[in-house]
């Protein structure tokens, strides 16, 4: 990557370049993503420094009247199981709900806010944002009606806050609503109040966690009765499509809302979101047979996608996110049991705690091969930047694949090859168990890494666990990823949340996953560092997004340089889109964030 991660000064000079036009907004945002930030945070940095406006520019839309576009058919290979956005588990439920419900604003592909139910995006100029960072005032769009004809007002927004923040409702969106206070200023204005200065204010009512449900249909079903609401299964929202039918896990159907609050939208008369099956046949249905117009999250090898695209009916679209497939290195000893738990904080890994070993491992991951032979366009070995300022690139990029160098580092570190070809020192051998979930690209990646490690005298035992177990939170099961009862493990850490703060919890000391917190802590590698803790706490309280970004970059850099984690490839979101369908995909929000603006070119 880079010789030295940019500090605050360097960031400000990059922003100045955007301001005077020598660096494009898009390249700046891409570079920030490469440092472990998110597009929304990068956009916030630009806005705060006056290099861009907070509000996204509207996207091009050609049709001149509402309706007439026929059916829109979308295929999600994991079907939606519920349609209440506050209970959504995973993007499939969020996307199903997003057809009918809308938030105040959404994130566009570059990380700027796009107003939907808000009249405009609050910023410092229009006094929407308070200077002390303790409140945000949203102006609501006038004339918006729910699907049953009742008007949308500030009461609905306040209700959503009361509904989600109550632990008895058990809403999955609670994290965004429990630490704030929302008050109605008038029928079309709400104010969100924070008790501490909050740099990332665009969480409540924004994006996938911000969809708004109607007060008049849910008011009787709060707390313990939340699951009994009939509207849970028959959504009434403000969106471009009205509810027609829902079969959990199978089908969501909607029809055009003739009273939608943006003129000439939507283009399509009906929408169908079918669920089930697997990713390859979902890609086939759009790319080869053209039966469907859009399909979601194609975790398919690129060579298959390329072959299917030859059908000529559709194309593959990638949207940038910050998600990274990476290998985690265990800082503790998973083979020693202390007080009934393995990989305990109280232990230290016998061999991986030697930096030489970790450095060698980082050099033995052949990212280029992984990208070329496994992921193709769906996995990028290095961050993809266009316009890189010369002084930040070192001649040897940090992420290189070099078996001789790895051998040299290990030799210098005193790790000598034994009779069986495996290196050892003080009686400890370099033998590791490397686990991941069952998934063809991952098994292939494991094989590539194992081969390279063999050449350097490191023996890897490959283990794969079925995904529904690996990614579960089962306390009793030793094979889940938070348990980390092995030396190395690999999976994709998703970063399609707007703010990296919760993503970076994986490096702080108070989030170490352990038996005492039922392995629900976010720091899976158990690696800790005082510098990281201090930088995190400073970043949490910092209102200036540039300074905040500098702290987050520092944390990410420390974690990568200390090899707590070894990034493999970046994973963009992959969708298949019919050739005539015009869609603007955003990796920071739902696939349907812009649904009313979808149309087909004639």
């Amino acid at each position: 990557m880079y010789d030295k991660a940019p500090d605050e000064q360097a960031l400000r000079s990059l922003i100045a370049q955007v301001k005077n036009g020598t660096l494009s907004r898009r390249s700046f945002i891409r570079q920030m993503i490469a440092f472990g930030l998110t597009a929304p945070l990068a956009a916030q940095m630009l806005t705060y420094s006056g290099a861009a406006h907070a509000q996204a520019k509207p996207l091009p839309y050609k049709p001149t009247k509402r309706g007439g576009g026929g059916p829109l058919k979308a295929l999600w290979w994991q079907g939606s199981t519920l349609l209440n956005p506050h209970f959504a588990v995973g993007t499939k439920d969020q996307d199903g709900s997003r057809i009918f419900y809308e938030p105040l604003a959404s994130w566009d592909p570059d990380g700027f806010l796009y107003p939907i139910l808000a009249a405009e995006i609050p910023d410092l100029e229009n006094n929407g944002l308070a200077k002390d960072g303790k409140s945000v005032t949203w102006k609501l769009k006038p004339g918006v009606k729910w699907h049953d004809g009742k008007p949308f007002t500030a009461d609905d927004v306040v209700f959503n806050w009361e509904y989600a923040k109550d632990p008895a409702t058990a809403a999955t969106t609670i994290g965004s609503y429990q630490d704030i206070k929302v008050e109605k200023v008038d029928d079309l204005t709400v104010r969100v109040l924070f008790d501490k200065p909050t740099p990332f204010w665009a969480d409540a009512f924004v994006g996938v966690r911000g969809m708004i449900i109607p007060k008049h249909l849910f008011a009787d079903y709060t707390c313990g009765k939340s699951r009994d609401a009939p509207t849970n299964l028959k959504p009434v929202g403000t969106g471009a499509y009205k509810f027609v039918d829902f079969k959990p896990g199978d089908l969501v159907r909607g029809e055009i809302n003739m009273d939608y609050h943006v003129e000439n939208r939507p283009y399509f008369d009906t929408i169908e979101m079918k669920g089930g099956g697997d990713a390859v046949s979902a890609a086939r249905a759009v790319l080869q047979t053209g039966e469907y117009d859009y399909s979601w999250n194609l975790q398919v090898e690129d060579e298959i996608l390329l072959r299917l695209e030859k059908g000529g009916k559709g194309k593959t679209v990638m949207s940038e996110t910050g998600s990274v497939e990476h290998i985690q290195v265990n800082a503790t000893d998973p083979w020693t049991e202390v007080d009934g738990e393995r990989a305990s904080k109280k232990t230290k890994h016998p061999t991986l705690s030697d930096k030489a070993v970790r450095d060698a491992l980082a050099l033995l991951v052949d990212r280029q091969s992984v990208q070329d032979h496994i992921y193709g366009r769906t996995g990028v070995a290095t961050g993809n930047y266009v316009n890189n300022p010369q002084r930040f690139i070192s001649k040897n990029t940090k992420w290189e694949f070099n078996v001789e160098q790895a051998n040299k580092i290990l030799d210098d570190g005193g790790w000598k090859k034994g009779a069986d070809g495996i290196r050892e020192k003080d009686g400890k051998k370099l033998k590791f168990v490397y686990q991941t979930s069952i998934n063809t690209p991952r098994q292939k990646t494991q094989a590539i890494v194992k081969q390279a490690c063999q050449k350097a005298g490191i023996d890897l035992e490959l283990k794969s666990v079925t995904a529904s177990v690996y990614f579960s939170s089962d306390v009793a099961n030793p094979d889940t990823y938070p348990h980390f009862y092995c030396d190395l493990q690999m999976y994709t850490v998703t970063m399609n949340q707007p703010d990296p703060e919760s993503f970076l919890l994986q490096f702080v000391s108070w989030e170490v996953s352990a038996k005492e917190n039922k392995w629900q802590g976010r720091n899976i590698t158990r690696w800790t560092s005082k510098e990281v803790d201090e930088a995190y706490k400073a970043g949490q309280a910092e209102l200036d997004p540039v300074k905040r970004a500098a702290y987050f970059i520092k944390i990410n850099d420390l974690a990568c340089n200390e090899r707590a984690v070894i990034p493999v490839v970046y994973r963009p979101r992959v969708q298949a889109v019919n050739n005539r369908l015009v869609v603007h995909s955003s990796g920071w929000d739902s696939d349907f964030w812009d649904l009313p603006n979808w149309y087909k070119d004639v």
Partner: protein
Amino acid sequence: MGRYLAKRLLIAIPSLLGISVVLFTVLALAPGDPFGELATNPAIPPEVRTALRVKFGLDDPIYLRYFHWLAAMVQGDWGFSFTSRINVDTLILQRLPATLFVIGSAQILALLIALPVGIYAAMRPYSWFDQLASTLSFVGFSLPTFFTGLLFILVFSVQLDWLPFVFSDVNATGWRWYWEELRQSIMPISVLGLFQAASTTRYVRSAVLDVIRLDYVTTARAKGLGERVVILKHVVRNALIPVVTLVALQMPAIFGGAIVTEQIFRVPGIGSLLISAILSNDTPVIMAVTFVFACLVVLFNLIADVLYGWLDPRITLG
């Protein structure tokens, strides 16, 4: 007969209870938990997950959970799905039409093929027709449904572009609706039907062969009856007794759905409901579906036995 029925029903009850205990215990011991996806999402605090676990009683001891479930079942409350927060019986009823339509039609298709082919093959054993039929049925039940399914998709959807391969709600009216339904269901029905037909043909053939060489058939022919009457009135009636019981025993399978075929064609049947419930650890749904399946198996076993005793005068029931 009445006493026999009563006895069988009485025995059925403890066996069903036993089945439910085993099912419940296995599910409780299985790894994975229904709220696992919540765990991987950093935005969801652990309190939400614990609140949900408490609400659904997931932290109670096993026997307590079992008795709650049993009490609710007896009262007709089949429970509440963890993943979709909808009543389980609503969920199952939603899936029933597609299951009955696709898999039921497949069974009917299987019988429509197997009966004439099997009977004719047995009428002319070792003739070219018989050889052909036997070979094709060997091939038919050796090829797994996912292979034939994918083959059909490749040929009919991708190459010829005649048929859609995703089974969905049809958005049309009148006879167009029937046409579209036919187009989308013909592939899953044929895949399943042909697979079933293959094994049923062999069975019908051997059953008819057994009967056709008996003395009374020769007598019937000697009496001067036409071949058609001999076959249909004498041979088939007696030969099909075991086939009828076989079909009765296969009835529960219709409700269990055909998991592989449903996955390939995305048919929203009970089989795919079961699989997705198992993968997401949705215990109430799994319990309800498997318990219904167990009841159906017991019921149809009883029906098969009674039917057999009724059709075949040589059999007396206990």
